[in-house]
């Protein structure tokens, strides 16, 4: 492995390399993890759902243009968007520079958090999953 990737241990992750963190008010903050961002390159443009938009796990909720490709952003959970980060719309590079803090994307009021979060990776399972994902990305040539 040539690169080190930072993963915060206090969050949940999905296979699209989005992270989720549930706050005290029950709202789930969503962002991109470092490994996913390394495969996309620098963000150039983002669209995000408006506040009040219902989103469904696995369905498109926005889109992005990064240095290496364009594509859709898929909602990691179902629920209602309660906040979107206007700072990353103005400055998409913030997602690359501060992915776990000010570079978050949206906050969602979850509809089925208990069920949907069971399919995500967190806690003790994280370490093994990260190693496997890095290996997968390296084999596929997605990261150097």
């Amino acid at each position, binding site marked *: 492995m040539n690169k080190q990737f930072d993963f915060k241990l206090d969050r949940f992750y999905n296979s699209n390399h989005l992270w989720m963190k549930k706050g005290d008010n029950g709202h789930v903050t969503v962002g991109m993890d470092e490994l996913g961002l390394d495969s996309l*390159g*620098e963000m*150039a*443009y983002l*669209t*995000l759902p*408006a506040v009040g938009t219902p989103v469904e796990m696995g369905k*498109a909720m*926005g*889109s992005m*243009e990064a*240095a*290496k*490709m*364009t*594509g*859709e952003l*898929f909602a990691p959970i179902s629920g209602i968007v309660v906040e979107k980060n206007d700072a990353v*719309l*103005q*400055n*998409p*590079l913030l997602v690359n520079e501060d992915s776990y803090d000010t570079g978050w994307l949206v906050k969602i009021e979850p509809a089925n958090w208990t069920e949907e979060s069971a399919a995500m990776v967190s806690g003790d399972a994280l370490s093994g999953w990260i190693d496997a994902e890095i290996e*997968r990305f390296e*084999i*596929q*040539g*997605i990261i*150097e």
Partner: protein
Amino acid sequence: MNTWRYIKNDRVTAFAGLAADEILANRVGAGTSQPTLRLYTYQPCALVGRFQTIENELNLDYCAKNKIPVNRRPTGGGAIIMGENQLGVALAIPGKSDETYANARERMAQFSQGIISGMATLGIDVEFRRKNDLEVKGKKIAGLGLHKTNTGGLLFHASLLVDLDVPYMLNVLQTPFEKISDKEIDTVAERTTTVQREVESPLAMDEIRHIILNGYKNAFHSNILLNDYSDEEIVEIHQLEKDKYMDSDWIFQSTEVPDSTGKSVIKTDGGLLDIRIVLAGKMIKSAYIGGDFFTSEHAIADLEQSLRWHSSRDKLLTETLSQVYERWSSDLANLSMESLRKAITSAIQKAEIMARKTSSDPYGCFVSPRGAHA
């Protein structure tokens, strides 16, 4: 050895060409179609990138008057003209693990290898240039784009300049030039090249297509066999044409962060420096560097390319300019980096002021009716 399908089309309409590529990538990602290389030409049209503001990129009046259709690609990058002298290259392959592109360090560079390998047989030395250009000795010969579909399919797009009518292109595209004279035409011609300019005697489009096809066969060690669309694919393509690429919501969609422009003209020791910047939020979408100072067009093209989709922050700007000046130290000797940095910063500030003015105007153009295809 992998087996891919090869589809050859000519003079397709903008909506049909784009819909076919997207359906192929969707289906290849879902595993219902085989990986496909498509080499095709369009009827004359103009295509903007996924997140571009169409009225800022294309001269829509000219296009309407001359019946030139306009449309929006799913891939990123800039506005382009397509027609009988530009070869469209679309490669639809699955985005999952596949030995075809295992160990690719950069997928875009990997997917360009077919073009690079083909052009090499003509003695043309084409290089991949991050993030989305192919160049010959610093001059652009093809634009590239990559899109991941919701089924996990990957669509690699390239437009290869086989020949180029520069005055026509400058009329179709919105340019930073106040008028289009021989000087402006020469400037653009100096920063681009074409297959026909690089070879000794003209080649027919079919010859070039054959060369590119063989380039992909060699680069990917693939068996690529001529075939056509399946009946199912044709039905889906026609549906997507209607649902998306013929829909003005898709073509004319606006973005939440609108563009603003800034201009700065300053006198330097080397001559007059004329900078135009298009800004979206904190990102420089494009930069034009002109003036009457003496330098190589290659160095200027490199500067402009390096500033595309670049942060407008001063620190990052200075870092990038330093890197370009290291590459072209003698060519840029007459244009001091500090003068250039100041002019760019000034143009950015003006664009920011314009953005603030427009956003505070309730009757401005910021109504952003997000289309159904956002």
